[in-house]
């Protein structure tokens, strides 16, 4: 009995974690996430490691890092890799995204983010346009969602001022791989700071 109860609880728990976001709720869901993130960001007393930890728990539930890693590498390249390499790459890529984000935190002052528009590109794609307001300037950030196989909407790319994050990585990785081996790409990902002078 105890055993079954445990399984039941575990099931319940996983269900909760992979809670599917219905399409109509994306704006409100994202707005509450953004608000939550903003309150964390504005909290001057909270130490930075704790801040990032809290922020990343929010992000982890809506960003599909695995898919992002795959897309940044390109399908062909990804398929040619052995699965341990894929896992290693995904881990490093996720780290890279997170360090890049953490570095941005130092620049944060009192920017506000407001949701402007939700556009359904096709059945499985949604673009959520937000505006980041800094002083009197407005910066457009688009979160790109796709519907995964559990029917929940996950972010696979972020577009900042028209620049797709995944695309920038994609071009860089392609460039590295035309000259170098995949292992050297992994090496470069391991030392995220300072682009290595060639």
């Amino acid at each position: 009995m105890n055993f079954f109860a445990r399984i039941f609880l575990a099931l319940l728990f996983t269900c909760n974690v992979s809670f599917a976001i219905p399409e109509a709720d994306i704006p409100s869901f994202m707005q509450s996430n953004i608000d939550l993130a903003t309150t964390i960001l504005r909290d001057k007393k909270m130490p930075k490691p704790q801040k990032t930890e809290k922020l990343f728990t929010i992000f982890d539930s809506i960003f599909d890092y695995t898919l992002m890693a795959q897309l940044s590498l390109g399908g062909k390249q990804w398929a040619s890799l052995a699965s341990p390499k894929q896992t290693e790459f995904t881990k490093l890529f996720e780290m890279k995204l997170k360090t890049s984000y953490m570095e941005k935190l130092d620049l944060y002052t009192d920017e506000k983010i407001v949701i402007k528009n939700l556009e359904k590109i096709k059945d499985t794609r949604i673009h959520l346009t937000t505006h980041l307001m800094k002083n009197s300037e407005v910066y457009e950030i688009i979160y790109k969602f796709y519907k995964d196989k559990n029917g929940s909407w996950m972010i696979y790319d972020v577009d900042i001022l028209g620049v797709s994050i995944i695309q920038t990585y994609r071009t860089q990785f392609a460039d590295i791989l035309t000259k170098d081996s995949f292992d050297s790409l992994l090496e470069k990902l391991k030392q995220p700071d300072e682009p290595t002078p060639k």
Partner: protein
Amino acid sequence: MRFILACLLSLTFLSASDYIGTTTHNNDDFETEFNTNNSENLFDPLSGYNEVMTRVNDNFYEYLLRPTAQGYAYVMPEMARHGVSNFFENLFYPIRLVNNLLQLKFYNSLEETERFVLNSTMGILGFRDVAAEELGIKAHDEDLGQTLGYYGVGNGFHVVLPLFGPSNVRDIAGLAGDMWLNPITYMKGRHDANLLDNSGQAMAATAFYTINKTSLHVKEYDNFKKDAIELYPFLRDVYESRRTKLISE
């Protein structure tokens, strides 16, 4: 019997597709989303030169521009630097006006003119951006490169210019054209100067503008550069995507 078999078969298919799903996403449609400007079909005949020039420019920034800008920032309070920046932006009004007009953006042209009048007078020669601060009229940045893009001129291949940084064939043509609209080009020195022979003063003014502008964005730029794994393809991609976005607006 057949029914059961069919059921079984479909189940295996289901689990098979499920299995594939766990290792690689079915992302053909994703591939098309990103492949359009992937490096495989990117025309970059100058890549060798561009890479070298990117490094030269980066060194110039690291060892000359940034230290200068930081030293300048140390002696000039931030408010004054914002003022100087506003002054120059106000000066570039002809570039924005003409290009807004060329793109038939009449309302924007009107707003630009309002800004110029307000900022030049109440804003004391443009040092204060009264129009944006008090009335919320914002600048509409347009340049000839964008105008050309607006009329369907393609980017052309990517070219990294010395000092100017990333550009492409279309935008170089644009830059050359905009020079004729840039008041700094017409600055007169002690001797009678003409457009092609006043390089000294104009260059000094441009240098001052650049140092001032850099001093306001050092932190952002350094942070942005940290995201790069390979500087040249990173900057190229950011530049080209950004320009495409600006043209579409």
